[in-house]
């Protein structure tokens, strides 16, 4: 038997949920470990950077990188992985689109540091001590990774071959992806390994959506008792389903919560937030500016609502800093 193909996992700016999702494969993980050699998986096994550096370039078949890129260390590792792997897969919303961490792009780096290290209510930092990337300790220089000015998606830093969407990707999709990789019949480069239609297609509540969704109000899920059968948009709850790629089999909706868009847009859409905005607003009932305005107060945080997982991958990417 020839050598089993080598597979790696790595995490950048992420919550760890993606790693969890690998374990969620349950007994199928045996199938995976049977078929491949996991040569690099810091969260589960003790590999050092130097171990990877020693590997031959391109010797790993595929590495699944989750998490967004915020620091110089993540960037460095991403590059190293790129060099060692034939295929790099952006795994999960953060690597794919920036994910929740990229909501930080609504703020400047300085603002973030200031809040974390001095303004946050739980912090007392009278001396205004801020982390340094380099300092001298016992006569030796110690360095910390640089905190970048912006959160990036993986493909904004390195070349990415495939994307596995979701926060986190479902075990089913992961299993399919691994099988595809092993089959050798690779999809075209850049493919998102999930269906290319929107979530409504596989939503169990699809049939309850009326032909004429005319919004007269917007409510947040905690503000009402949500009907468990009825389309959420028909109840005035913002559901990203129509603008979000299918593949999760409507997990959140089955939990009686609206889709928040973690699978990102379909291939034909450049900006998921703009599209859902367009679709929802077009169907607002009000005609006068005042009425529309009042209605829109029901969406107090449009950026957080429409770009919850994708600000880094959006067209604007980042809030514009004033005065530049």
């Amino acid at each position, binding site marked *: 038997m020839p050598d089993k193909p080598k597979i790696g996992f790595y995490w950048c700016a992420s919550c760890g949920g993606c790693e969890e999702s690998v374990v969620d494969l349950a007994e199928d993980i045996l199938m995976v470990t049977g078929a491949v050699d996991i040569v690099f998986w810091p969260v589960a096994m003790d590999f050092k950077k130097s171990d990877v550096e020693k590997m031959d370039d391109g010797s790993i078949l595929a590495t699944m990188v989750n998490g967004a890129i915020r620091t110089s260390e993540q960037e460095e590792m991403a590059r190293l992985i790129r060099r060692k792997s034939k295929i790099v897969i952006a795994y999960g919303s953060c690597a794919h689109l920036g994910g929740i961490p990229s909501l930080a792009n609504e703020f400047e780096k300085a603002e973030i540091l200031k809040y974390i290290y001095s303004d946050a209510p739980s912090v007392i930092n009278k001396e205004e001590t801020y982390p340094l990337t380099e300092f001298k300790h016992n006569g030796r220089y110690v360095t910390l990774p640089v905190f970048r000015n912006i959160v990036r998606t993986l493909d904004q830093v390195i070349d990415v071959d495939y994307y596995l969407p979701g926060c986190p990707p479902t075990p089913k999709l992961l299993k399919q992806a691994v099988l595809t990789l092993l089959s050798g019949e690779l999809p075209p480069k850049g493919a998102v390994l999930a269906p290319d*239609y*929107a979530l*409504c297609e596989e939503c169990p509540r699809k049939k309850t959506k009326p*032909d004429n969704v005319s919004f007269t109000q917007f409510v947040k899920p905690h503000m009402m008792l949500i009907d468990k059968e009825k389309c959420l948009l028909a109840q005035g709850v913002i559901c990203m389903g129509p603008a979000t790629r299918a593949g999760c089999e409507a997990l959140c909706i089955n939990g009686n919560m609206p889709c928040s868009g973690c699978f990102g847009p*379909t291939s034909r859409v450049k900006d998921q937030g703009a*599209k859902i905005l*367009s679709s929802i607003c*077009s169907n607002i009932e009000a005609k006068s500016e005042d009425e529309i305005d009042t209605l829109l107060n029901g969406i107090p945080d449009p950026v957080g609502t429409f770009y919850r997982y994708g600000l880094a991958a959006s067209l604007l990417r980042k809030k514009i800093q004033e005065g530049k």
Partner: protein
Amino acid sequence: MYSTNGNNIPRIGFYICHCGHNIASIVDVVEVQKYAATLPGVTVSRDYKYMCSDPGQELIQQDIKEHNLNRIVVASCSPLLHEHTFRLAAEKAGLNPYYFHMVNVRENVSWVHDNKEQATEKAKDLARAAIKRVFFHKPLEKKTVQIKPDVLIVGGGIAGIHSALTIANAGKHVYLVEREPTIGGHMAMFDKTFPTLDCAACILTPKMSAVKSHPNITLWTYSEVEKIDGFVGNYKATIKRKPRYVNEELCVGCLDCIEACIYKEAKYPDEFNLGLSKRKPIYIPFPQATPQVVLFDPETCIDFKSHRCKKTCIEACERNAIDLKQTAKFEEIEVGTVIISTGFKTYDPKLSPQYGYGKLPNVYTSLEIERLVNASGPTAGEVVTRDGKKPESVGIIHCVGSRDEKSNKWCSRVCCMYSLKLAHLIKEHTGAEVYNFYIDMRTPGKGYEEFYDKFMNEGVHFIRGRVAEVTDWALVPEEENKLTIRVEDTLIGVVRRIPVDMVVLSVGLEPREDASEIRRMFNISCSSEGFFLERHPKLAPVNTFTDGIFIAGACQGPKDIPDTVAQAGAAAEALSLISAGKIELEPNTAQVIEKYCSGCKSCIPLCPYTAISFKEDIKKAYINEALCKGCGTCVAACPSGSITQNMFEDEQIFSEIEGLLKFAGIELEEKEVEHA
């Protein structure tokens, strides 16, 4: 099928037009041409004096053949003007016409800027955007629709009457809808017409009765268009026929009922005579009214108010035509084309209080004078002031409600001529001294200057100056009990006060008050002054921006009778559509890409034409192309990008944006060329 000239690799022909000096004097066309030649995909780049001319078009056709071009970009005037011309040229050379794109460097550039450098930069940007855009163009098939042969004409003045007869004589059916109880419009009020001074009634009444008796014309007076839906060739209209309380089929116009009305004396102001005479609650607008059918005014008829009238009118009607319980009737018709000829209204001189209209009794509008001099008018043609006296001197003030920023800015075009006519008629009827106060005398037209010349010789005074005020305060004895006109005789440079017995205000022409509602109903546009907007003042003067809807007469702008009648061109346009039997429409419709549609239904309520439906069997949206008019709203709103619009695909617009912004000093990556 069209050749695609191996369209996998775009071979673009770029042409920029000098348009004589129109473009070339501001835009450095040669520089743009040279610049375009450097852009990816451009095989041929040329500049030419007049691209729209035959040699210009041939240039394109030749290049298509010689250089195997498969995309054409022409930078010239507005696409609204010549897009069709160039598409046709490309088509003739065997290229699908939708591989063409037009850049507007005249209306959008050379005519609106004067900095040559910036204008040239802008032209380059626009050219680059178009060149980038045509990479993504696709061959399309034109959509054709059938034209229903019937025509709806709205408004039965001379414009409507003439158009109706033209079309009816060509053997097509016309529905002529008139709001008033009779057709004839303003012209029916006139006594004589300029410049021939022939009797208006003698010309008009035969035409009116021809309309009434024409087998191809359905005449609905006292009726209004309530609603219209559909699109070119296939309009569906609902006509509201207001109740006259008299059965139109039975009434023969004997007028016995009017005689029998319990009001022995007429006591209500007569609309047709502008209140200069009285009528009864049952009346006919004027003796030659067409149709010859009486009508009730429920506002003044006793029976409508108290139900206690003896109803002598009903008794008097031998044909039992009176039906006091009549209600509005609604007629539904299907027509292929519509001609709007709703005419004008005259300026209300009460809005110019300095002339005293409405306050000083002997100040009249020109239209009132038309009635006064008319042999069938309220005074049987005798010109007398309101106190019954024959005026010894009359002042005619031109440009009331014209050429004035406070009322209407435009020249109403007909006032000089009709003022001359009235001056003559008043002089003829009364022998009074007649003064014409004018700003500029405008008599362009066949026989018009001669008309002016004639009355100068008749001894009419012509004073060049705009009257500042007409007042009844006297400064000197000769002004006592007279109306005094204060004016600068600008040719002498002296201010004059001229006492007269009667003042005629030559009121200007304005759009009808409800022009805006008509515009909305028929989906056409108005120009800034409120008259209906023609598609092009020279190339399409009776067309509107809505296919199949034409305009004729003074609803498009002030016009005299000869010009109005000449606008029967609207009829010709309608006829040409009808005889073609079908019309090609822009194939800019939208389609749902079935395999991508998730069935979210976001698009369904957005379509104003209900072209989008939900296919229950496959749970996906579907666009009926025949109903789609190509606005693209659903495309913009589709949250998963699963609807596309021909000619305005996302990719095309994105590439246009990118093309435009390359000048920002940012090198955007050239998109990979993708093709179906």
